[in-house]
């Protein structure tokens, strides 16, 4: 066999190996990127009845996640903090601490949100009271629809404001 033919067969083999890799690799890569391509409708979800909040009440609400899978179990819902500040005005907060995402807990008597992980603390209006959080708690879009208050679910990572 002459050397140019040998060289051709070498490159042919390398090329075919690349083709095999691409034929399997491209669909698999696309499949793994699937969650990014899946359309998500972040619809308004009922968080509760407006009448359930007295002025100044801060309550944890559960809202259904968009696009949750049939086997999601407990993760079919997310939580949010809702505080009533006026007749038709509310403050809504993501439960995620703005430091690293741990869940903040509302201490009603202390009127503080406290984070159990690194000690972040926030005032009732969500501004930082102490600890490492770089910014106030994230607000969630809300609206009053009839007798209900409705929210949109928080999107991770929390740097992405929910749409």
């Amino acid at each position, binding site marked *: 066999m002459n050397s140019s033919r040998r060289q051709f067969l070498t490159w042919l083999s390398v090329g075919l190996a690349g083709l095999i890799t691409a034929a399997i690799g491209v669909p698999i890569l696309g499949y793994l990127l699937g969650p990014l391509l899946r359309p998500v409708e972040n619809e308004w979800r009922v968080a509760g009845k407006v009448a359930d909040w007295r002025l100044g009440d801060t309550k944890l609400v559960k809202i259904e996640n968009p696009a949750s899978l*049939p086997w999601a179990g407990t993760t079919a819902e997310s939580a949010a903090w809702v505080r009533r500040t006026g007749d038709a005005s509310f403050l809504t907060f993501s439960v995620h601490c703005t430091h690293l995402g741990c869940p903040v807990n509302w*201490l009603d008597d202390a009127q503080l949100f406290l984070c159990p992980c690194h000690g972040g603390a926030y005032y009732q209006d969500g501004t930082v009271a102490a600890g490492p959080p770089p910014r106030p708690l994230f607000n969630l879009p809300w609206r009053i629809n009839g007798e209900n208050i409705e929210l949109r679910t928080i999107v991770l990572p929390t740097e992405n404001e929910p749409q």
Partner: protein
Amino acid sequence: MYRWLDLRMDISGVWRATFLHPVPIDVNWWYVLGSATLTAFIVQVVTGVALAFAYVPSTEHAYSSLDFITRQAFLGSVVRGLHFWGATAMVVLILAHMSRVFLFGSFKFPREVSWLTGSLLLLLVLAMAFTGQLLRWDQDSFWGIVVLAEQFGKTPIIGGVLAQLTIAGQQVGGATLTRFFATHVFLIPAGIFLLIGVHLYLVVHRGISDPPQPDSVVVPNVELERYERVLATRGVPFFPDVAWRDFAASAALVLAVLLLSVAVGPPAMRTEANPTIVNTNPRPDWYFLSYFALLSLIPPEVENWVILGVPIAIGVFLFAVPLVANRGQRHWSKRPWAVAAVGVGLLAGAVLTVAGDRAPWAPNIDAVQHGALPPSVTAGLDTQQSAGATLFVRRGCWACHTVQGTGGLAGPDLTFVGDRLTSDQLTTRVLNGGRNMPAFASTLTPREVDELVAFLRTLKTKR
């Protein structure tokens, strides 16, 4: 029969090349750490496969299937215990093995690639430790995933995409757990098998480094010849002359892991993962307590740099070491900086792990929700002071301040604050807050402030 097979498979040839290959006679007990790590990995594979026989990787059933394994399956608790303590052993041993290799200068020419594959193995082992903890699917797992996604989210430009790929969507949900399951049981182990293959091939092919003497120096041009001379004069077959120590150490390791899984058992089943239960206290397993502590103790301004920078710095260090320092002195007595690096690294890791376990920065939310001050604090208080003591607990002061060894550790200990501060100073502090203390001016009425201050003034050495 053996002859028939050997003629076709060359079993004796393979045996000679691997188990009977010559190694320096002075290879000692320090050299068992690598093989012990391998044994721990085998324990992990076997017990992991066994767990996968019953574990259901679905968000709906993961927790209950693990509960079944732990409480009902025959020997299930022991198998889970073996997997947990095996993981602990593997992390400890791989770090010990790396320290040994580093201090002995065994990573120098011609074994740089052994070090590099070993560094990648360390990375994968830590990834196994992290993803394994997530499969427990309790509150620690759930919030661990959220924190991971949040940290990935801080990466410039691609952060959002990276985070949503990690959790397979916009929320941690049904698709997240299967992703971590497949990563933990297929993807990373495949990488580990491959790298162990290369690592062991190099051990056999380039031989085990001889223990360094104070005058041992690696000169790449003559190192291969020098090693040949060592084997010619002091070489013995690896098996059984040297390998018996490896078997002894591995046996001790497996028995210790078995003992721990029977006597101590696997980690207790805690609350199932639930995004709507915020009254929780998420903590990583011990492997990552040091990192957890680091994120609390550094100033927030530099945090994004640390989150990205520390892993990159460690990675660059591990990969640069064999390329920059592949020649010269081997003995630790001639390499003070190497000894310092290992010493400082281990010490920092230990200190941060202890700090992460204590987590003094975290508020003691449980205390203010369910606890009560010790009688020695509340005894003999008048009405106003007693009302102040109640406020001290209810308004959350106690979550961060210690009184007689109870409460939180985030703020100053107030056991004797009455000796230090006057009523006016205390009032100012309560109303305005301080460096890392919330202001309570809008939460407390003037009367409540007086009650609280009256109570705080009773906290003295002599009452």
